[in-house]
């Protein structure tokens, strides 16, 4: 029973390998780093969410209150290597949402920093940079997801799995 409990929280991915460990620590550090500012200044983050102009007004503050903590908990779990399947799924989902939101606003020519429609080249460059950065973050998250889900994670065969 004790073994089962630890399996549950640890996930079957017992030996992460250097790439897996690197991906986990990298993503974990980024999530923790990204959320500290938002937690320190919820009003400012709410305004940033507002500037994305995607969510209805009623969801803006709720997002500003809860989302940074999702990042915080996710980042800590990634670094500690607990709830591995859950963190892999959530990391991919969260990054896809961020990526989609920025891409969506890039496509409709909205400069998020400004919160207004801006088609000037200067505005476009920084948005393209954000898209590229988010795409880079997605790679390790997909790698983690693949490692945790697409592998042979039969309990009791842990020593053969990654």
């Amino acid at each position: 029973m004790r073994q089962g409990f630890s399996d549950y929280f640890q996930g079957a991915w017992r030996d992460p390998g250097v790439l897996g460990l690197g991906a986990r620590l990298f993503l974990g550090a980024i999530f923790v780093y990204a959320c500290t500012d938002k937690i320190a200044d919820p009003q400012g983050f709410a305004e940033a969410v507002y500037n994305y102009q995607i969510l209805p007004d009623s969801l803006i503050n709720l997002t500003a209150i809860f989302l940074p903590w999702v990042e915080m908990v996710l980042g800590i779990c990634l670094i500690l290597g607990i709830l591995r399947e859950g963190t892999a799924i959530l990391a991919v989902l969260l990054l896809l949402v961020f990526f989609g939101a920025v891409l969506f606003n890039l496509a409709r020519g909205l400069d998020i920093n400004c919160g207004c429609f801006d088609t000037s080249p200067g505005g476009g460059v920084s948005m393209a940079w954000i898209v590229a950065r988010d795409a880079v973050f997605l790679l390790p998250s997909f790698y983690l997801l693949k490692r945790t889900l697409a592998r042979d994670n039969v309990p009791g065969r842990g020593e053969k799995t990654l």
Partner: protein
Amino acid sequence: MADECGRGPLGLFPAEGMKRMKSRSAALSRGLLQAGILLLVACVAGGAMNMVRSSPLPWVADWSPGTRFTAPSGESLLIPLQDAIALFKEGRILFLDARPAAQYEEGHIPGAWSVPWQSFDQYVERLMAELPEDRTVVTYCDGEHCALSGDLARALRELGYENIRVLHNGWTRWREAGLPVERGDGRGS
């Protein structure tokens, strides 16, 4: 060589493939449950943190212009377009264009100074020295959702200028009202 289901070349050992598929769906469902636990923990932490803050964020806020553009005292910063036009005609108004300089050069309200919010730091000293005391200072940018004008107005208020207002969606409304505009780098270059 095993195919997708883990069968051998002669269709043998199907059990191995079944086992793998089962383990995958088990890992997925466990993952979803773990993700749920994570979200729950985050929600409890976020909610609790918000409640113990000295100034908690309201769960739901009003994001309409009237409440978005308010001074810390709660007083609205917005100036109605008609009031701005009246002051403009009397020469008792100074507009600050909070948009990026390139947009200012394409066109702006006559006499407006260019004070791009993104590079506000570079303008602070000059504003402190030159902002007139006898005119109402009105910031504007462009678009229903544009926050630059409000940010600029609040920053100037914090520096001690009381007579500052915001013309919401100013550039668009100014042009729609058929009022005169000016091109080039003007006064604020």
